[in-house]
């Protein structure tokens, strides 16, 4: 066999072996409870007195200490989680933080008047699993599909993620296309005009 074909075959085999090694831990596509779709698990904690505190809307000190250990922002309030139609979900609580975005500089917005009503954003998900409570951090996609339409007044989710939340990356992509065009001019354009 020629050396190039041998090298190509060996590299394909190595990559295949690597993907088989990795395939055990990759989450399934479209799995609604995987890390990029709902949330990534942070830690577990025993559910002794904490459950009663959470039901009344008070965050217990042991939970705050553990969250502070991870280095993520501290929550300010806890509520019972609600489903898509607004029904109460058993055994799930949401913890909120205030993101401090420059949101309310203009007088009128959809969320009420300005600096008295700061925006609260749900950040942590606390789920009861048998005797322990698992604490997850919500994936960014959850904010995009629950509040994106209210925050940007655009019905199409793909457009507002591309052009608003991650607009700078789209500028980079447009610049890549522009660079490809100018490279074609640099490498291929001939002197003189096109034939008449």
């Amino acid at each position, binding site marked *: 066999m020629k050396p190039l074909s041998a090298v190509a075959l060996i590299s394909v085999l190595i990559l295949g072996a690597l993907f088989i090694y990795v395939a055990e831990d990759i989450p399934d596509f479209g799995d609604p409870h995987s890390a990029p779709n709902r949330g990534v698990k942070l830690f577990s904690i025993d559910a002794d007195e904490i459950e009663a505190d959470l039901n009344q809307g008070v965050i217990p000190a042991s939970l705050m200490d553990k969250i502070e250990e991870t280095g993520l922002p501290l929550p300010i309030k806890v509520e019972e989680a609600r489903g898509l139609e607004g029904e109460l979900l058993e055994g799930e609580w949401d913890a909120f933080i205030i993101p401090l975005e420059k949101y309310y*500089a203009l007088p009128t917005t959809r969320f009420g008047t300005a600096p008295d009503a700061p925006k609260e954003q749900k950040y942590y998900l606390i789920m009861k699993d048998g005797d322990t409570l698992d604490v997850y951090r919500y994936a960014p996609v959850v904010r995009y599909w629950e509040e994106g339409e209210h925050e940007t007044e655009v019905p199409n989710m793909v457009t507002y993620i591309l052009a608003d939340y991650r*607009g700078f990356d789209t500028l980079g992509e*447009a610049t890549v296309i522009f660079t490809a065009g100018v490279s074609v001019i640099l490498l291929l354009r001939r002197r003189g005009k096109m034939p008449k």
Partner: protein
Amino acid sequence: MSEEKRIYERDVITATISRLMIPFIQLFALYVIIHGASGPGGGFQGGVIFASSFVLYLVVFGLAAAGKRFPEGANTALMSTGVYLYAGVGLLCILISLGVAEYLNYGFIPLTHMFEENRALGMDLVEIGIGITVMAVITEIFFNLVWKKEEEEKEKEEPR
């Protein structure tokens, strides 16, 4: 002139249908760009559809006629204009709020009285810019490749 007449007489069907279709393709492309906010579409997709109408013109009528219709200088200027619009809108957000807002924070451009609607309008402007650039770049690439191919064929014919 006589060469043009021969093309027209050879490919009557293609030429006539292209002349009818090209304005509608361009109208559809503008629809896709502007309605990217409420349905599938957006700047990249609409720009490619717009460029495909120019490519259709080139394929049917030949490089000479297409070169007369779409001059190189205008194409090059359009390539810059689209991305200028995008980067310029971002810079405008900083300047018009006197340094309070960040880059590409469309909410602070005072087009309407509502924060969220300003964001939607900013997104529309940006998508139009992307559409212009993508159209100009695809036209440029295609025209340059065809031109080089024609030059190579001419050079092959000469020593014969």
